[in-house]
């Protein structure tokens, strides 16, 4: 199989599973306990938290360990909106991940003021519209670093600078789930208050993520209980997951400059090979402000569900970018927000590359795509 769906999830990097194993076997203790096996687990947890914090320039107590991206997005938005009695609104962007959009819609349904801002044809958020939607009621804005379907990179530094100038009291959240492999993420350099990450998008385990919460940021918890994570997220710790997350973050950070060059080159080669043979293919991923590892292509006249089925049977794993629980390809809200028609979104396929992608498999996959497109036309 040639795996080109790294934006969905990635294989775990070498050594990480082995590093996690002891914390489900010998050191299985509940990190809140008073005996040796628990103390050792607690120690491993806090050591992992320090390593995690260090990779993004945060302090350990600013890391809330969660089950992953969706939970972190929920905690950021609901936690911020529900913690204040005066500022309860949320402003976000039409192309955000469902975890942000659906949480925003939930807050709207329970009566909080919310607003969605559009994007241009390349998928970039219009900063003036974004600022225009922020009012005295706004608790938080949420803008992702890097879009999961197209790979467009939002101009977060400009957004943060503009927000701080105009609306200093409003919290800023970013879903950085797709960005950790390729982008230097330092919470102070970014200047955000809340940041979502999850391990499995960059070679870590599934079920282990985090929400960075800048010191002093008010946050209502979603999970009430034993008071773990300084009361911000109750529940017995996933110590093995935390260790795996720390390992993966360090490995991915150390691999970043290679990733940007090599994986970027692999993606570019794949793109050039396809476009050279099929000049009518439309590249939905913008030319500038793009990640090195995403590529969203539209094949006019070919329905993506057909192409994906044929790719699967030919041993290539790709995606429509947006799939529902049943697995059926859906109309992409991201591409629609960029101005594509529903039919055009149904002709679009996402190829996403990762830490284990190779030149040879990208070339082979491009040739398989070309062969199938010829058959399907």
């Amino acid at each position: 199989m040639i795996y080109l769906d790294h934006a969905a999830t990635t294989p775990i990097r070498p050594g990480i599973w082995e590093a996690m194993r002891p914390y489900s076997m010998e050191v299985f203790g509940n990190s809140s306990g008073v005996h040796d096996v628990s103390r050792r687990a607690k120690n491993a947890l806090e050591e992992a938290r320090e390593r995690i914090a260090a990779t993004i320039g945060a302090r350990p107590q600013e890391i809330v360990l969660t089950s992953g991206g969706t939970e972190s997005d929920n905690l950021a938005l609901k936690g911020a909106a529900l913690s204040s009695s005066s500022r309860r609104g949320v402003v976000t962007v039409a192309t955000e991940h469902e975890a942000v959009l659906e949480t925003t819609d939930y807050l709207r349904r329970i009566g909080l003021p919310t607003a969605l801002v559009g994007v241009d044809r390349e998928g970039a958020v219009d900063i003036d519209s974004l600022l225009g939607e922020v009012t005295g009621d706004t608790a938080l804005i949420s803008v992702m670093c890097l879009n999961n379907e197209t790979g467009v990179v939002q101009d977060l530094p400009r957004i943060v600078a503009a927000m701080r100038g105009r609306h200093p009291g409003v919290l800023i959240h970013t879903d950085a789930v797709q960005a950790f492999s390729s982008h230097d993420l330092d919470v102070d350099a970014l200047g955000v208050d809340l940041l979502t990450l999850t391990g499995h998008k960059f070679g870590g385990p599934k079920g282990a993520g985090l929400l960075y919460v800048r010191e002093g940021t008010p946050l209502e918890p979603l999970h009430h209980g034993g008071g773990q994570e300084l009361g911000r997220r109750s529940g017995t710790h996933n110590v093995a997951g935390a260790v795996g997350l720390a390992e993966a973050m360090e490995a991915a950070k150390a691999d970043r400059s290679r990733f940007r060059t090599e994986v970027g080159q692999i993606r570019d080669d794949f793109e050039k090979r396809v476009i050279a043979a099929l000049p009518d293919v439309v590249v939905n991923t913008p030319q500038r402000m793009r990640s090195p590892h995403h590529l969203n292509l539209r094949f006019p006249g070919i329905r993506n569900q057909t192409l994906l089925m044929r790719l699967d049977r030919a041993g290539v794993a790709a995606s429509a970018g947006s799939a529902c629980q049943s697995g059926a390809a859906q109309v992409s809200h991201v591409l629609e927000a960029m101005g594509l028609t529903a039919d055009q979104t149904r002709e679009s396929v996402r190829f996403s590359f990762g830490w284990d992608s190779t030149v040879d498999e990208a070339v082979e996959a491009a040739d398989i795509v070309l062969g199938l497109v010829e058959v399907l036309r």
Partner: protein
Amino acid sequence: MRALAAMSGGVDSSVAAALTKQAGHEVVGVTLKLWSGPNGEAPTAGCCTVSDAEDARRVAAQLDIPYYVLDYTGEFRDGVVDRFVHDYASGRTPNPCIECNRTVKFDRLLGGLAEFDCEVLVTGHHARNRHEDGVWSLLRGADRAKDQSYVLSMLTQPELASTRFPVGDLTKAGVRSVASEMGLRTAAKPESMDICFVGQRDYRAFLRDTAPEAVQPGPVVDSDGTEIGRHEGIVGFTIGQRRGLGVAVGEPRFVVRIDAGRSTVVLGRRDELAVAGIKLRQLTWTNGKKATGRVMAQYRAHGEPVAATLHDDRLLFAEPREAVAPGQTVAFYDGERVLGGALIADTFV
């Protein structure tokens, strides 16, 4: 042979796929996603859990065949649901399952066979097709009580040549026992009798929600034109209907005509229900040859075939028949063999 198995998540299509695989063919399972919610509302959470698709997926995994969910919600809405609403609003009684077979299942899946890199389509219908002397014929299923040849009566030679009905030779009990021997999780699954997009609700409520403009109140009149009551919308009525008419008259009354133009429901005595024949449209012939003369005609999904004579686009019953509803399908038989099918455009006395 590479086969595309349409898997609904029911026992028949599970066994159809399983038998095809067992016979040594390469099978690709697909489930069609046709509808997103009871009111057709956009799913809010990116959720379109076709719960039946889950059973199909598990059966496919057990059979170790690739499996996909294909989205045909657009085609289904345009070709089936809109038409269902339009037909009722026009005073006809549609059969959406047949429209779905025609415009979605067979049209899209057979039309897409090459794209899907398959040679035949396999379905779980209780019907049989035979290839003799270069001609494909469509026969009733071996289990007469479960026979579905009526809903397939619009298939023609090229479609029959590319379709297989592996459970058509089995009884329903036989299908369940094969499923149970193979350990398929759908072996004991109850049958769905609902119109899929209407669900367990009343179809009239569906129409009121979906197409409120089609549900206009109007008069209920006797066959001599006297108004004897009011109705909330003609979509609530079907030719031959006796209950729920909302009027109290001495002797039993039946819906004998629906005048969509005047939004009027016409009631009559039982003897006014009888029609001498049917004006047909969209005639198709399974073997490509127009039939003429004496046939057996079935004009309801679970009705018995009756003797009739075909003259071009007119079907004359051997004796008058009741409750023949425009919009329904009529299938023509010669014994077990389906000759063809048509839609009931109108009736005549």
